[in-house]
Every structure is written in structure tokens, then in C-alpha cells.
């Protein structure tokens, strides 16, 4: 028994679910969402920060990532003329700012919509994000960031020590001040994915959970459907690849080309429920912290190249613990409740991989969202919906096309359907 859908979305994380939700509003389309949860899927592991500017300028888990990269490069470059300094922030290109900020702007309305129409509350909270400054190196880093984003001056605020303590009384006295990004907020990440999914289901999308895509069907250069272990064959006009850290595997099956998406491991800590210790989200050069609506505080995160391994490891957890206690000394008295690890779908230039690929029809990428899948899920859903329906896009997709990479065919696409 084979099924037909106009659109099949492979991957039910926050990206696939957002695509499903946006497409579900088109009553003429028959849509299926196919998902097999694998250990380490990033949506469930995420902290849920909507740090549009923060992440674009390399804060949040970016700063930790950059510090690590910079330390590695320093080690590798020892003796060479290249000096990589951690005081130089890691600023993403303008195209990413536009992408992230447009997505960020969608959340207030999306929150009302999913709650009002579908009864799903993803706990959108306006928190701001403060980069806590301990020393001169941090200050230089912050000044450099501000210098790079003159067009966002109205979204940035400097806090001196007194102002920081007024805003966040529990921050360590060691902190000299902070740089705050006013438009950076937070959500509950898995509730966001659940809200998109349930909205899509209520609008008529068929959900196939615990279903593994094992092959892709072709007709000439056109993708025609997928095979699954659990639910048989699905035929479709368009296949959307939203399989997160596993996206390279599906792209190989669909196009014969392996898009450069690799798992980037991140470990995260969660405290027990606390009265309000933090008024907003914080990032330091050691870690970031976000107190969620139920009082738990999330502390993230490492950036590790360990393949698909999702174990938690003591030295890394200890590093985050020390970073958190340094910033909020009160935490020493608090219980650590749980740790886990997730796999960010990393791309080499840290930009997502979206849209069609040359030479293949009926296939669209929605992957490679690296650290910012929660934040950029909203705009990704909107973009993919418009691509499927052949409508004008709200922003230029060129910088995000897979064709920006020189992809070499690894294997031939599977033979055409007999």
C-alpha cells in the first residue's frame, strides 16, 4: 500500500515541525511529517534562547565555541605569523543577521497564534540577553561587537556594575558590567516543536512518528518519494530534508551529493526548580544561563567534535559548573538535576543550508541550522512554505543554497523507479 502526499517532511525536530505548520495552512496541500527520534536530536537538547543578535555576533554558545577554536588555532599556529586573538568576536555575515532578526520578529505573533488557535503555549518570554563582563579582555570583546553592528545600536545597551546589579542582583561582584541585547529572548524549545507539530496535526498534517526513512525514490532527476521501514512507501511531489544532524545521509540518498552537515556535540546542565535567580538570559565567556518559566536554570554548553556520541562527561560538566558558579555564586547551594548532550547540525560556514539543489527536482533542504535552529525555525518554515508554493521570498536565499559548497558526487542516486 503506498501513500501520496504533495509534501513530505523528513525530520520532526523544530525545523521540520515549523515547515509542517506553515504548509498546513495551505488547505490544498496534503502534507506528511515523518520522524524517527534519535539520541541527541538538537531540538530536545536545546536551551531555547532566541538570541538573534547574541548568536549572530558569536555569543551564547558561540562565544564558548569561538574561545575553543581560538585556543586550538593558537596551539596549531604557534610560531607562525598568524595571530588569532580571542578578543576578536566571531561575527556572522549580514545575510545571517537579516535571517535571524526576521525570524526573531515572528515569535510574538506566532506565540499568540499557536496558543489561541491550537492551545499550545511554547512559553515565549521577553528576557533580553546580557554578556557579562569580568575583565578588560571581555570589555574589548564587547566593544568590538558594538563596533561591528552600528545599524543595531538601538537594540544594544551598556550596563555598568551598578546597573547590572540592579538588573541581576545575583550576579557575582566580580562582574564589572554587561552588554545587553534588548531583542534577544527565550522560549521552551521542545514545547515550541510540540506546538508547531500539534498545530500542524490540527490543520490536517499526517504524523508518522518512530518511522525511519531508509531510501529515496526517483524518476529521472526528480525525487518521487521515500521508503520507510515502518510505514512502507510514500510518494510525493516534494521532499523536505529537515533531518538535523543526520541531514547529510538523506541528502546522499536524495541527490547523490553529501551536504556538509556534521554533528557538533553540546553538553547542557539543568538545575532543580528555583525561585527567580535570573531576570534575563546571561552569557559569559565560560557559559550561558537561562532560567526557564518553571524555575529551572539551563546552563550551556560545550562545543565538541565527537561524531554522534551523546554521552555526558565529567570534565566538561565540571567546566560548565565552575563557569556558572563564577557568574552566580548562589548556585553553589543549588542542586544540579540533570545533564544531557545534543547534536547541533553544524555547517562549515555556520549558515543554514536551505532550498533546492542544482540538478535535482522535488527536493528542498531545510538543515544545517547549527546553534540557532530554535531561533530561525520560524523564518525557515515561512521560507520553505513559499518555496514549495513558488511564491516570492521575504529574503534572498542565495547565501544559504547548498550550491555554495563545491559538492562532489559520492554515490549515484538510486536508480529510477521501475
Amino acid at each position, binding site marked *: 500500500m503506498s501513500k501520496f502526499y504533495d509534501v513530505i517532511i523528513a525530520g520532526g525536530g523544530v525545523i521540520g515541525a515549523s515547515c509542517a505548520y506553515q504548509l498546513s495552512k495551505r488547505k490544498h496541500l496534503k502534507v506528511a511529517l515523518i520522524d524517527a527520534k534519535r539520541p541527541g536530536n538538537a531540538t530536545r537538547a536545546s536551551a531555547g534562547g532566541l538570541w538573534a543578535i547574541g548568536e549572530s555576533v558569536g555569543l551564547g554558545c558561540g562565544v564558548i565555541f569561538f574561545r575553543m577554536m581560538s585556543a586550538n588555532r593558537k596551539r596549531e599556529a604557534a610560531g607562525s605569523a598568524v595571530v588569532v586573538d580571542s578578543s576578536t568576536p566571531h561575527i556572522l555575515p549580514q545575510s545571517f543577521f537579516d535571517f535571524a532578526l526576521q525570524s526573531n520578529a515572528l515569535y510574538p505573533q506566532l506565540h499568540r497564534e499557536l496558543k489561541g488557535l491550537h492551545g499550545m503555549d511554547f512559553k515565549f518570554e521577553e528576557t533580553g540577553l546580557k554578556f557579562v563582563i569580568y575583565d578588560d579582555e571581555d570589555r574589548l570583546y564587547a566593544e568590538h561587537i558594538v563596533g561591528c553592528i552600528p545599524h543595531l545600536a538601538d537594540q544594544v545597551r551598556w550596563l555598568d556594575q551598578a546597573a547590572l546589579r540592579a538588573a541581576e542582583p545575583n550576579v557575582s561582584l566580580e562582574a564589572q558590567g554587561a552588554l545587553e541585547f534588548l531583542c534577544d529572548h527565550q522560549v521552551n524549545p521542545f514545547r515550541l516543536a510540540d506546538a508547531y507539530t500539534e498545530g500542524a496535526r490540527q490543520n490536517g498534517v499526517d504524523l508518522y512518528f518512530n518511522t525511519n526513512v531508509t531510501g529515496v525514490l526517483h524518476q529521472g532527476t526528480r525525487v518521487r518519494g521515500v521508503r520507510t521501514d515502518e510505514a512502507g512507501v510514500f510518494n510525493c511531489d516534494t521532499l523536505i530534508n529537515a533531518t538535523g544532524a543526520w541531514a547529510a545521509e538523506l541528502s546522499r540518498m536524495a541527490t547523490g551529493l553529501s551536504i556538509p552537515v556534521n554533528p557538533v556535540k553540546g553538553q547542557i546542565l539543568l538545575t532543580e526548580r528555583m525561585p527567580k535567580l535570573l531576570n534575563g538570559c546571561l552569557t559569559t565567556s565560560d557559559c550561558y544561563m537561562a532560567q526557564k518559566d518553571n524555575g529551572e536554570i539551563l546552563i550551556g554548553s560545550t562545543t565538541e567534535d565527537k561524531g554522534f556520541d551523546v554521552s555526558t562527561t565529567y570534565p566538561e560538566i565540571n567546566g560548565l559548573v565552575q563557569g556558572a558558579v563564577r557568574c552566580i555564586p548562589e548556585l553553589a547551594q543549588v*542542586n*544540579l538535576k540533570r545533564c544531557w548532550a545534543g547534536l547541533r547540525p553544524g555547517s562549515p560556514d555556520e549558515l543554514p543550508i536551505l532550498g533546492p539543489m542544482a540538478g535535482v527536482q522535488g527536493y528542498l533542504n531545510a538543515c544545517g541550522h547549527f546553534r540557532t535552529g530554535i531561533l530561525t525555525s520560524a523564518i525557515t518554515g515561512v521560507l520553505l512554505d513559499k518555496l514549495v508554493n513558488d511564491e516570492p521570498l521575504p529574503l534572498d536565499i542565495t547565501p544559504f543554497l547548498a550550491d555554495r559548497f563545491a559538492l562532489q558526487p559520492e554515490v549515484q542516486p538510486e536508480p529510477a523507479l521501475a
Partner: protein
Amino acid sequence: MSLCPVIVGGGPAGMAAAIELAEHGVRSILIDEASRLGGVVYRGPLRDGVQLDYLGPRYCEVLARLHGDFARQAPLIEVRLNSRVIGAEATRSLMVLDADEQLYEQAYPQLLLAAGCHERSVPFPGWTLPGVMLLGGLQLQIKSGVVKPQGPVVIAGTGPLLPLVACQLHAAGVAVAGVYEASAFGKIAKQSLALLNKPQLFLDGLSMLAYLKLHRISLRYGWGVVEARGEGGVSSVQVAPYSADWQPDLARAEEVAAQTLAVGYGFIPRTQLSQQMGLEHGFSDDGYLRATADIWQQSSEQHIHLAGDMGGIRGGEAAMLAGRIAAVSILVQRDVLGTEAALQRRQALLNKLAAILRFRAAVDRYTERGSGQTSLPAADTVICRCEHTTRGDIDLALSQGVQDMASLKMRTRVSMGDCQGRMCVGYCSDRLRQATGRQDVGWLRPRFPLDPIPFSAFSQPGKDASTHE
């Protein structure tokens, strides 16, 4: 080899293993979370000098023998009490929180996991009221010699622990209002022959029944709990006849006045640590997960052994035998025992184990869990006590198409609390199985730390924390 083998759990399995190792001259480290050894079965009184006559002479004799044997080997056993194993670094070392709430890493060349079991929680309206207890926990109170539950006590559940605790309570001077065994009498009678594999236990059972009769304590077969009622605490318990699959017949429900309700619908292996280590697990017949072990009590990792209820519920006596078999395997791995001697020793232990296993199988057959109990909770009955998730929340999630444990967790927050689902995972997986018709609905991956630990337990880099080495 410089490092000692490490044993997690100082109950009968862990103690017996440490004794066996010491009898062969091998030192070991024994870690237990309690302040005394013995586990829940053989911990003995919390205070010295307390007489536990009401627990019966045979129990007191085994208790004394185990602790006596252990005391004789004490010089070769390093006991670390009040120490909780809260995680594992792969299959090389354990993370332990010591009595001073400091975290340290304990490496091991060979490991025995003997973490025991915990009780199965069965949610029903009123199950979170003060005065509702799990049966094993209530028995621990009597065994502690320090506290007694408030009578009258209603006991509802299944298995041989029910009449035993009823007799112990009565002997300790606590009024027992009634005992309600979910299994029908015919089902138990059918196992009589198999239960005779342990004639002494069978006789004990009969004499317990006679004791209850003599003291006019009613024991009703095929009856179970429906609801606990009261303002701020239990004042009465609703019980009703159970069908073969434990569906209560509410039309015939009765109300029994009680200050305490003890609920004992069985035990579940404690697998949080073995799961975190990534050892192989399987499902037992009643749908619960347990780590798999071979005839040497070896897990899927050769150097990691399992013994006691952690690998399947068999009770204290079997735990001691399995603990010794694991110790023999460790002795072989350390080149202390030759293969021939080890095989002989193992066979002697297996011979003793065989009768217990036949007896346990008979108990398992008559205490087999009925699925009808999942109908007990009302829409507003709390299922996950940590996150206050109700049955209604779970019903809604199932109606929205949730099909596996992890998705149910994300949708309703069940198991996201401090206990990581130890209490609610049974009910939730039963409901998922009923809703999907699938046996495998996934399981929750236990996370580090297995119990919450203070941030101050972590050592700052530079500060030396290796005082345990």
C-alpha cells in the same frame, strides 16, 4: 592489578560477593547509600540493642549469619557508607557522592552492580495522600525498630510480602484492618506444587495464613485497591473485587476505615546506573526493563557483573548466591581462581539457586500484573508527582498522537523531575502500550546525576579532590 574490584550496593548480593572475594584473599570496595549495610532486606535495626523478635526467628538467624560472616572478613573490605553512585564515566569509572557531599571518581578493574530494586508505584485517586505508603517502605519502618505506622492499616497488593508484613505488623502491635491480594485464590493454589520447591518458605506461608486467621485478620483474594479517601490524610480506603486482569468491579466496592494504606504491587529492578553505562537491557515479562546477565552474572561488558534484584526480582536468598557467583567470576578474571575450581564452585551455588528460581517462577506466575489497574486514576489524579502531571494530561497527549515515552515526556513533563521517572514510568509505558498496541514504546534514558547533587559537590580545578585514592 593494583585497583580493587568495586561493589555497588551493600545488600545481600553485594555483601555476599565481598565475603566470597575476601575468603579468597581479595580486597574490595563496597559502596552503599545507606548508613548501614544489609540492604532493605537485611539492614537490621537502626539502633543497637533493639530486639526484632516480631520479625520471626528464621529472619533473625539469617540476618545474624550474614552480618557475622561479613564481620569476620571486614579487614579485607573497605566499606563506604552514605555514599551514592550518581553516574558513570563510560565503563571505566563511577562518579560517587561521598558522605560529605563531595563528588569523586572511582575507577575499577572489575565491578559488581547490586543496586537492588524499587517498588512499583500504582496511581489511583488519593495515592498521594499522607498515610498511603508502599509496602516495602512500611516494612522498613517496622524493621528499623524506631517507628511504627499508624493503625488500622489496610494492605493491598500481590505476593507473599502481603501476609508477611501483616503478621509482622500485628506482632509489633499495629492493628491490621484487612489484607487484599489482587490474585484470585485459584491462581495461587495452582502454583502450590511449584511453591513446594522451597518447602520451608511454603510452610512459613501456611503458618502466616494460620496466624492471620487466628487473629481474625481478613485476607481476601481477588480484591484490590480503588481509592484512598480523607482530608489531609487517609481516613478510609475503597477496595473492590478485581477481575482476572485486575479491572475493579466498582459496583461491589467496600469502604474500610484506615489510617494507613500500604500498597505492594511488586518491585522493579533499579536500572538507572546500568542504563547510563550503556549495558545491554531487555524487558522482563511484566514489561519492565532489566540489565541482562549471563550464567557468570556478567553483563554485556565482561568486567561488569550484576547480582541481586537489579537483574530481575528474586529476593534476598537468591541475591546472596548470585553475588557469590559474580565474585567467583571476578576471581577468575583476576587470576585468583582457575577455571576448573571456579566451575565447581559455580555449580554448587547454581544447585542451591535452582530451587529458589522454581519457587520464584511460581510466585511470578500468580502475582502476574493485570493491565486493568491503569483504569484506576481519575482525570485529575496526579501521575507524575514531581511535575504534577495528571492522568488528564496524559490522555490528551495520547489523543494528540504521542506514541513513545520520550515524546510523552516532552509533551507532558512526566519524568522531568528529580526522580527521573522512577515513579511514573510504569504507568506511562503501560498506557502507551495500550494506546499503540506495541510492546516497545521506548524507555527514558537516565541522565547524570542519577540523584540531584549540589553544585558545591564539584571540585574546582587545582583543588585536589582525590582524597579517596
